[in-house]
């Protein structure tokens, strides 16, 4: 029978007496010693007094020894193994080189862990060493797997990682410490540093986190960071985009920064980086001139020795919408046509109307002695046709054409033509001063219009006739469907006269004049077209007011005029609701490696959902000006289909969609999507040792930098010790010499007291 192996001992009391009895007896002993001391207090000899005190104390201690019955307890014990977590950052920034031309940061960590393997193994006596990669979810890794699999995670969340590690592990084993390997490029909770709640969360872990910073701070890199821009902007309203240009290793260099819209430069600036690690804010203010969604890109040059090239551009999508439609109404002279259009525009809450009427020409004589008797103001031609022209969404000329030099716009015709070409909207309303009538021909402006003058106007009353194109067009859709629209136009009163014009090639005639022909075709009454990036509409009469006022002569209210001009304005400003095919990138900005989604909503000409429509969407690269992928699908009952493209290369893209239902063309539409070159993770290659140091300091760990020769002596909490086997007590008091010593002490005191005369 083998005796058990004991590996620990401790001193214990083997007395069977309860603890309180022992306490009382101990107090009695102390009292006895005290009384003895009291009895010899008058002893003149100090030596005798000390001798008596010493003998009594010695006897008391000996008595206490016998009372407590001391013994040695032999024990069999074991240490509980705690955990040590080794955490390795698996975010994409760990793929950056640890130094120019060096291995990646992850490779450097893997190399270190290989090197420190013996020391980590040595820890296994007391700890279970668990090795995780975090992205930020924890996943077991080995030095070999680290070297093999590149780090890809789109974010760095150090706090989430250490929290997860504290809660992970086997069973109830406690964590004795963490070894955190990272570049410190946190872009989540610790982005702002170890402050506030993040600091409290780290302190609450009660586990020392020793940090190992990997990567050099002195990496050379230019990055476009800190993009600040709204998700949407108002057309023809200035907008500011702010970015920060972060340069490391570019001290004293001038860096050009360019803002472009789908390949076209919008603005550019140059910043000078003053120090080796400098951040310069750059703001671009520009005025979008078209509604829609567009991809904008901020770019800085890529230098050959940069650590990361992908963070030198930053793309974003901007949805440009209209606020209130800002309309400039320029009227050649007051007329009923002007009066009803003004009434309509003024009562439309969505219209911001700015108007200028020519109330008096040089040939008019108001019969006043002083201009102060008139309320007239000078016609601010330069202001409205030059400096402020681009602030208007729609410019309407209503029978405005003057040859008189003081009122002629000959000088500004090119401005107006360019305004339309560059995305503006223009309406020419006819009359006896324009479209071939009067003396002001305005040839440059006429280039931008969908019709050309073709002869003298005809005063014969006529009923406007809807063309097949007009039957489908949103401008002339004044009914709830095609039949209703056709009936509504048929009910409108005749119009007294129209300008004689011909449609230019490419123009769409929506309404024509049945009895007037030019070049063998019916003269257009209402014609539209896209000119450059803008749109133009011509109404070849000055009597559309008949659709407003005269339409009520028979008693029934008519909204035809309001609907027509309302539709026209919405079409002119490209109201998305007026398209039969609505294309929406979903989402408009795509992170690297993510698919590009697009939602297409198809409607019939009467704006009812187009079920079972065949939709084709082309992913068109703006950078290469080539299509890169095509997807097709069929719409559901709601006329909607969602398609997805495999992750394309970074850059700006257009989603060009078209749809058909049977043989019916449902039109086309487009949207823009930005596929980002880098997510937040890769936009900054910097290393943040100060964050790593702060984490270590807050948790009681130590901060180190790689490379290291081996694992340093990191602070770890000691694991607890637990009794796992039997115990054996060995009494100490039951020895004869202890009894002899007690008797000798008591006897010696008795003898001394007798000798000194105290008994």
């Amino acid at each position: 029978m083998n005796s058990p192996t004991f590996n620990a001992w401790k001193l214990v009391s083997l007395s069977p007496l309860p603890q309180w009895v022992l306490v009382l007896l101990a107090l009695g002993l102390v009292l006895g010693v005290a009384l003895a001391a009291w009895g010899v207090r008058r002893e003149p000899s100090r030596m005798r007094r000390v001798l008596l005190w010493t003998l009594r104390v010695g006897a008391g201690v000996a008595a206490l020894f016998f009372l407590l019955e001391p013994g040695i307890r032999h024990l069999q014990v074991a240490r509980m193994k705690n955990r040590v977590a080794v955490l390795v950052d698996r975010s994409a920034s760990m793929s950056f080189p640890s130094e120019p031309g060096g291995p990646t940061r992850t490779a450097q960590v893997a190399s270190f862990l290989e090197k420190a393997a013996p020391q980590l193994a040595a820890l296994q006596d007391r700890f279970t060493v668990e090795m995780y990669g975090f992205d930020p979810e924890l996943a077991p890794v080995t030095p070999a797997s680290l070297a093999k699999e590149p780090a890809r995670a789109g974010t760095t969340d150090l706090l989430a990682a250490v929290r997860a590690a504290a809660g992970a592990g086997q069973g109830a084993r406690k964590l004795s410490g963490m070894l955190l390997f990272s570049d410190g490029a946190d872009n989540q909770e610790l982005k702002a540093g170890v402050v506030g709640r993040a600091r409290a969360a780290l302190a609450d872990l009660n586990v020392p986190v020793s940090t190992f910073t990997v990567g050099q701070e002195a990496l050379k890199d230019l990055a476009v960071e800190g993009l600040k821009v709204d998700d949407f902007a108002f057309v023809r309203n200035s907008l500011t985009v702010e970015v920060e240009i972060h340069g490391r290793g570019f001290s004293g260099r001038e860096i050009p920064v360019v803002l472009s819209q789908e390949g076209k430069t919008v603005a550019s600036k140059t910043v000078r980086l003053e120090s080796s690690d400098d951040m310069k804010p750059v703001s671009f203010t520009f005025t979008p001139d078209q509604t829609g969604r567009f991809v904008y890109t901020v770019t800085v040059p890529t230098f050959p020795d940069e650590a990361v090239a992908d963070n030198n551009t930053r793309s974003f999508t901007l949805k440009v919408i209209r606020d209130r439609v800002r309309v400039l109404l320029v009227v050649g002279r007051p007329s009923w046509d002007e009066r009803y259009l003004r009434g309509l525009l003024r009562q439309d809450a969505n219209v911001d109307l700015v108007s200028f009427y020519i109330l008096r020409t040089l040939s008019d004589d108001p019969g006043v002695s002083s201009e102060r008797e008139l309320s007239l103001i000078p016609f601010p031609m330069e202001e409205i046709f030059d400096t402020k022209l681009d602030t208007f969404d729609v410019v309407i000329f209503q029978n405005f054409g003057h040859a008189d030099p003081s009122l002629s716009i000959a000088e500004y015709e090119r401005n107006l033509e360019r305004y339309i070409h560059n995305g503006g909207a223009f309406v020419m309303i006819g009359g006896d001063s324009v479209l071939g009538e009067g003396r002001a021909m305005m040839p440059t402006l006429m280039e931008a219009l969908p019709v050309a003058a073709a002869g003298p106007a005809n005063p014969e009353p006529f009923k406007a006739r809807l063309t097949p194109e007009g039957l489908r067009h949103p401008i002339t859709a004044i009914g709830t469907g095609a039949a209703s629209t056709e009936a509504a136009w048929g009910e409108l009163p005749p119009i007294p006269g129209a300008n004689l014009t011909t449609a230019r090639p490419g123009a769409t005639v929506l309404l024509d004049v049945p009895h007037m022909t030019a070049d063998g075709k019916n003269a257009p009454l209402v014609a539209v077209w896209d000119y450059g990036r803008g749109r133009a509409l011509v109404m070849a009469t000055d009597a559309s007011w008949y659709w407003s006022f005269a339409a009520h002569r028979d008693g029934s209210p008519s909204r035809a005029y309001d609907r027509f001009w309302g539709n026209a304005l919405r079409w002119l400003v490209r109201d998305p609701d007026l398209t039969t095919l609505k294309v929406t990138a979903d989402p408009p900005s795509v992170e690297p490696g993510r698919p590009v989604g697009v939602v297409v909503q198809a409607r019939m000409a009467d704006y009812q959902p187009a079920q079972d429509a065949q939709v084709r969407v082309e992913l068109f690269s703006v950078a290469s000006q080539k299509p890169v992928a095509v997807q097709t699908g069929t719409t559901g009952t709601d006329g909607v289909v969602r398609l997805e493209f495999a992750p394309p290369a970074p850059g700006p893209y257009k989603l060009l969609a078209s749809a058909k239902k049977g043989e019916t063309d449902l039109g086309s539409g487009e949207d823009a999507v930005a596929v980002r070159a880098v997510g937040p993770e890769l936009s900054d290659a910097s290393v943040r040792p100060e964050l790593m140091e702060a984490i270590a300091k807050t948790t009681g760990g130590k901060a180190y930098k790689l490379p290291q020769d081996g694992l340093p002596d990191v602070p770890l909490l000691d694991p607890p010790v637990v009794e796992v086997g039997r115990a054996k007590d060995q009494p100490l008091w039951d020895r004869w010499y202890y009894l002899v010593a007690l008797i000798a002490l008591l006897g010696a005191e008795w003898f001394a007291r007798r000798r000194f005369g105290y008994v």
Partner: protein
Amino acid sequence: MSSRRLTRRNLLLGTAALAPLLSRRADAFGEKSRFIPAVARHGGNWDLRMSGLRRIAWELQRRTSVEVVPDARGFQLSSPDLFEYPFLYMGGDGSFPALTDAEVANLRRYLTYGGFMLADANDGSDGDGFDASFRREMARVLPQSPLAEVPSGHVVFKSFFLLDAAPGRLLNKPQLAACMLGKRAAVLYSQNDLAGAWNRSESGDYEFDVSPGGEPQRELAVRLGINICMYALCLDYKDDAVHLPLILNKRR
């Protein structure tokens, strides 16, 4: 009440003055888009100021850029043809019988859908005569929009000329009254026989003396007439913000 004798010279001058109206722009679009006052026929004396209306149209042509047909055309208030003439003049000397229901309904529709009416008490009445009949009928036509005095800051006093009163042949009431539909004055009403100050006799002379202000008051009445026509054509154009600083400066 003729103030001037018909002379051959006056006749020639009057005829010559009409010439520009005929020679200005070609009638490419006919006359329908031009300014032509319509005149309301009612059961009383409705056509006493036809020449005055022709005259104010002529003045409008001469002094402003507005193109007119120097004519005034009478219509029954129940006529659908009224809807081709957004400017309607309703005057009279003495009371007139109640309008028919059809006339009331048509006039209400005319005013509601954008027509404008200038009412004018040719008899200068106040509480009787034309005034009583007109107020009675307007209470039927626009019961929700009673006649109220037009404030001096109203745009009608600055739509072309800067004015601060509303004289006519008479000056019984210094201001106009209006029926407002929303922010628009659908009816303007003068009790000063405004058109009486414009009226010409067949010889071309002004038909009536103007009191108490004489010829300067007539000029103001003409200017007011032009302003009213301009208001009918341009609505609140002169209330646009771009005009305000200059108008305020001129009024100082």
